[in-house]
């Protein structure tokens, strides 16, 4: 199966780029650590000397949490509200910059220099920001469609007096949302790969042509994107399945829990680079189309510099082009 080979190829590329994995991991860790450090400092006087706080170790979260949130001795609510908002913004900016570097590394142009990640960030940042702008607009449209779907089924549920319409609405909305989101997400990624690959700047054109490009190849992109969605979910499901068997009640247990959680996040970062690798491989095997240029000028790259090494891509992938 082509998508499976693409994934395998992506995974191989990922494990050869441990620094990229670490950066992908750090992008979310960094803002989270900032917020957690502030919260930890704020909570230390209230929690570290309180016998009541031991309830946390017994798994009785809710009762402690409500007192922590309500306590006048802590400033948890403003810290979490503002910290989370700032963290989200910071993470979003870092994600865009990270993608600019990742794509540069994975596409491996000659002019990328000795430090392709850094040069990729510098060279592609503005292009990727503009590209993100179109993506956000498209995502908002998808969100609107999903919301309309939910509301329509909610109204139907009320009119018919049957809550199953809510459930159906949720499923339909989620399915429609996933389909549309997959479409724009793949187009977004492919347009950025094309922009880096060909040093093009027309991000809107790339995005729109990327949409058509994806729509025409559902057999390839549908299973590929589905695997992007399912694998992180499966990872978390596995974590929760194991995690829910124990209540961490000791200092050692806390350390083990920390390692387990960060291993999950590291695995997610690995998956993320794997998916990027798979998308780049997919783009190349499909002829590295110049999505960001007018259709009339689109032609094969005379010398695809990023042709997959046989040992990397596998013969079948090369032959699909």
């Amino acid at each position, binding site marked *: 199966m082509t998508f499976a080979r693409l994934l395998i190829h992506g995974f191989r590329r990922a494990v050869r780029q441990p620094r990229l994995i670490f950066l992908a991991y750090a*992008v*979310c860790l960094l803002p*989270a650590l900032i*917020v*957690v450090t502030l*919260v*930890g400092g704020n*909570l230390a006087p*209230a929690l*570290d*000397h*309180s*016998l*009541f*706080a*031991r309830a*946390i*170790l017994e798994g*009785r979260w*809710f*009762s*402690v949490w*409500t*007192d*922590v*949130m*309500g*306590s*006048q*001795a802590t400033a948890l609510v403003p810290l979490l509200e503002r910290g989370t908002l700032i*963290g*989200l913004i910071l*993470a*979003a900016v*870092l*994600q*865009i910059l990270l*993608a600019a570097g990742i794509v540069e590394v994975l596409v491996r142009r000659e002019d990328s220099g000795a430090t392709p990640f850094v040069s990729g960030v510098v060279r592609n940042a503005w292009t990727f920001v503009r590209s993100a702008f179109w993506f*956000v607009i498209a*995502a908002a449209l998808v969100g609107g469609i999903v919301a309309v779907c939910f509301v329509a089924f909610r109204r139907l*549920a*009320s*009119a018919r*007096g*049957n*809550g*199953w319409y*809510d*459930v159906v609405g949720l499923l339909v909305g989620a399915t429609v949302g996933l389909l549309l*989101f997959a479409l724009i*997400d793949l187009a977004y990624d492919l347009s950025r790969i094309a922009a880096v690959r060909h040093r093009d700047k027309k991000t809107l054109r790339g995005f729109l042509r990327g949409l058509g490009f994806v729509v025409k190849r559902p057999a390839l992109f549908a299973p590929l994107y589905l695997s992007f969605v399912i694998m992180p979910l499966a990872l*978390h499901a596995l974590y*929760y399945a194991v995690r829910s068997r124990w209540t961490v009640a*000791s*200092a050692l247990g*806390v350390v083990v*829990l*920390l390692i387990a*959680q960060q291993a*999950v996040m590291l695995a997610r970062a690995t998956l993320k680079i794997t998916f990027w690798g798979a998308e780049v491989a997919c783009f190349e095997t499909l002829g590295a189309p110049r999505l960001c240029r007018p259709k009339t000028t689109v032609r094969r790259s005379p010398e695809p510099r990023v042709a997959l090494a046989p040992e990397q891509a596998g013969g079948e992938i090369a032959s699909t082009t």
Partner: protein
Amino acid sequence: MQICRHRPMLVLAAAGVFVAGVSQVCLSQSVELPEPVSDVTLRARYEPEHGRICGTERLSWHNRSSVPIDELRFHLYLNAFKNNRSTFVEEAGATLRGDEMPEGEWGWIEVTSMRIVGGADLTHDAQFIAPDDGNAEDRTLVRYPLADPLGPGEWIELDIDFESHLPGIFARTGVQGDYVLAGQWFPKICVLEKAGERGREQPGWNSHQYHGYTEYYADFGNYDVTLTLPERYRGKIAATGRMLEQAVENGEVTARFVQHGVHDFAWGADPRFILIEQRFEPGEDVPSAERERFATLLGVDETQLALPPIDISLFLQPAHRSQADRYVEAAKAAIRGYGWRLGAYPYETFTMVDPPRGASGSAGMEYPTFVTVGTHVGFDIWPFDGVRLPENVVVHEYGHQYWQGMVANNEFEEAWIDEGINTFYETIVMDETYEPGFASLLGLEVSDFDLRRAPVSGGRFSGPVVQPGWTFRSFGAFARNSFMRPALTLAHLEGLLGHETFHRAMRGFFESWRFRHPSTADFERWMNESSGQNLDWFFEQALHSTRALDYSIRRATSTEREPAQGWFGEGDSRRLVSEDEESSGDVQDETDPTETGSSELGEIYRSVIEVYRKGEFRHPVTVELVFDDGHVERREWDGADRWMRWTIDRRAKLVSAEVDPDGWMVLDVDRLNNSYRLEAEEAPRRKLLIHLLFWLQNLFEATAFLG
């Protein structure tokens, strides 16, 4: 005007009305019926296409006061939904409990005729009144002057014609398609309070308009109600009491319901209903070991805890069929839990109506022997199947059969008596029946008590518990002060008095005030007398003030004492103690000034503990001190001053100090500061933080779509 001056005549008439079903509608033998203040015979026809009820009411009403009455007062509750100038809509903004009144689907009630039987026509004497806010546009309260006053102990018989238009489902009543829930749907006579009742000096009407947050107040009576609906509602009509007859004629179904000893009558119908009938059988549904436990707790013979059988009817939406057992089992748990603690449920039937999706405005409401519950199909699907909201609603509404249904307080003025006390019992029944009591959702376990406590943690109360419902700052403030805070107050009181004293007092209060109208003062007086303690200091702060209870260990230190140096003693016994010199002797709690810091018995530590009253609520507290030699001691402080300090010298180091070591002071708004351990333990905080870190990482990972 003809006034029935001989009650026996009325009794005979009433007996005639009820004769058909008398054997079926009597209360269980163990509980006596209340003397009816009114006999109500209603005949009503419901037209679903217009949401209209056309009805006639034969009302026999008793002036139980000691003075002549020169006017009658009636609630016309449905007029709260007549327009956007009603007091209800002005106060609540046409929203309640998160539900919005459907736009343009107004509701109203009009008395088209009011006549004294064989006497004067009062129809055109109606005067709308607004004693609470003077709102001239409010039409929820009406008075009818009587030309001939009704003497003390006399009865009056009235024939009333009325037309009600139910609103779109909102605020406990209304219509949604074929589903109808008719609450407050007929002219309801107000409560005439006697002298001495609820602190009243002179007899008089206690009548209020329908307000945005408040519920109702009514006297007990006997109801005989005949409802006519289109034939498709056959077998799908739920109502207060037991259905005695049901007949189909000319495309219509007519059903007759009778119930004695209740203060309201509501009904609901939906052609889609599935009727599930079960019976609470004491032989099957009551574990004997539990009964023994309650007999010991309450100090009564086990025979006094006998519970009668009850017919449970569940009118269920087809979509919720799979949740039928959850509803019924919760009802049985409530019947046991309330019955054992307070006394047997005195009626023969208990009916639950399950509103359809979109009719949540009518969900979760109590009427005598009849409640509306509420669920969603989602509560049958993982992970929400671990949320016990359907059970919670059943237990809570069943509990209202006791608090407000039987102990019929004035909900306008003192909503906490039924809502607060009932919420307290709800938490007990939920938490003893289910594990955890309220929810188990993706690893988060929440007891019902913790759920109820959450909104009031942190304190910052905007008003006292005891105040008229319409004077609260917001619905949230009303809910916190009428449901959660008084429930915590009772849980706190349970700890203060001890389980046995408290539960015996509460059972006594219920038995004493069943079928009566207690006030807050009555409750306080009863608890004082039953417990043998003067609890006024507690009630004053917990119910009548905004004071928050918050005691903390502000400081706890334990340091090795410096060796004694210098001159000690007087006269001949004066001696100089140098740094090298050691003295012996036992060190107890108090300091021996010549005791040095060390000996073969071990180091001496000076422990200083400061307890601080952060809130304005003054309350005696117990402080537990734990030393590293295993010694544990408890000290008492009256909690009156702002702070208290103890200095203790002991050959052991203080490990921790804790206010309220038994954890019953649940009114304490911040339990984190109740204790102080000298050696910090970081594991709880670290566990919390690494979870927070994980959550935040995953949240921020959502931005990965941008990257």
